[in-house]
């Protein structure tokens, strides 16, 4: 993934690596040292919590926990790489794009995901994908990272397996 990202961002002067809370943040931390030697400038690492931009927030239900967002105040002209663990419906990425737009107008936004599980509900595609998995709507794909879960793993549970 890192080498693909290097190829994609070769001409970017100051790319910003934005991890989506929570697992995306850890994955961005892993990617950063692999990207940094190949870049001319420094790589910014930031985090984004999309909770307040969710399109289902008005629906009655439990309030999701809001976590830290840390983005540079001026994203104008930057190359932003969004990093997340799983790409499914595309709604998280839609929310992230809207939130980033409130911080500025990046020159380009890329999307890197560890797992693309299909099932898109919006016209959104990733630029860099770790692994593609065919899944049904009821299946569960969980990415585990050592920092939060004690191990690195991608866990796929089929809906009909239970």
């Amino acid at each position, binding site marked *: 993934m890192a080498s693909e990202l290097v190829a994609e961002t070769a001409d970017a002067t100051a790319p910003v690596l934005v991890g989506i809370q929570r697992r995306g943040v850890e994955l961005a931390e892993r990617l950063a040292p692999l990207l940094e030697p190949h870049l001319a400038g420094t790589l910014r690492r930031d985090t984004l919590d999309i909770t307040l931009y969710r399109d289902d*927030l008005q629906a*009655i239900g*439990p*309030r999701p926990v809001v*976590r*830290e967002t840390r983005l540079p105040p001026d994203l104008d002209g930057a190359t932003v790489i969004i990093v997340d663990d799983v790409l499914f419906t595309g709604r*998280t990425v839609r929310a992230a794009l809207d939130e980033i737009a*409130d911080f500025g107008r990046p020159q380009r936004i890329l999307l890197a995901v560890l797992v693309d599980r299909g099932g898109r509900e919006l016209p959104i595609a990733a630029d860099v994908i770790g692994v593609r998995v065919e899944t049904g709507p009821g299946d569960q794909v969980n990415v585990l990272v050592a920092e939060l879960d004690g191990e690195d793993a991608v866990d796929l549970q089929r809906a009909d397996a239970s």
Partner: protein
Amino acid sequence: MTSLLGKDLVGLERLTREQITAILDTAEPFKEVSERPIKKVPALRGKTIVNLFFEASTRTRISFEFAEKRLSADTVNVQSAGSSVSKGETLVDTARNLEAMRIDMVVIRHGASGAASFLGDRIRSNVINAGDGKHEHPTQGLLDLLTLRDRFGSLEGLKVCIVGDVLHSRVARSNIWGLRHMGAEVGVCGPATLVPRDIEALGVTVFRRVEEAIQWADALNVLRLQLERMQGGFIPSLREYNRVFGITTEKLTRAPKDLLILHPGPMNRGVEIDSDVADGEHSVILPQVTNGVAVRMAVLYLLAGGAPDWATSGADK
């Protein structure tokens, strides 16, 4: 689905430690929203909130309004002067008429203790108490807790003394209940005429002399002398009050450690607090105001939906 806080936020007395912790934890990420170039998130888009103020307020009303607008809610301000309230309409009729226009939340400030609870029981909208008489001012209590937690890391075992006009103060009551729930020790200090009898029943220590309170405390919450609520006889004179109970640099230099100074505002400089203390390096009076917006955003966010879902947050992509 009931929210973590129930339908209304009337006071801190009935909240649990878990509920207060959840509000303070939710306020943390909201601090950052106010630092953004576009200070707005769409979380409460489409919600209509009425700020119903039957008593004068500048800071609290503006703070609520900022919190509402930064969450993208639509807001209407109703003040008693110049509205149908001054024509004799009752509180419930006013609120029911507003509700007939399809509102979602009411933020109420009222001179009568219990007004927020009374209203919350009679309308479907969420009700947030922005100060009811001498009862409670829960969002002020929460912002004080947040400011103390910012500086000390934890509230457990912290010694906080509330100094001044405890009798007339809803801020004092919200602070006492909030701090006690969070495991802090609470002292109160003021003239005997301005400290309610039997206040020890709330689990607080009473200090008759401010010098003793300063020796004991980690932080002082200095209350405003509510001159407008005092129809005579509580204190001999403002000068006398300042000499005996006013927080001055001279009194603070005798403290064994540096005390954090809080004040809910608006200040009577030179009465309950001297200017060099209010503007000094241990004063967090302006950080309190900044935290007020974040805490109110957290309360609005949590009341508008259900309980925070700690287990599954971020799991559904």
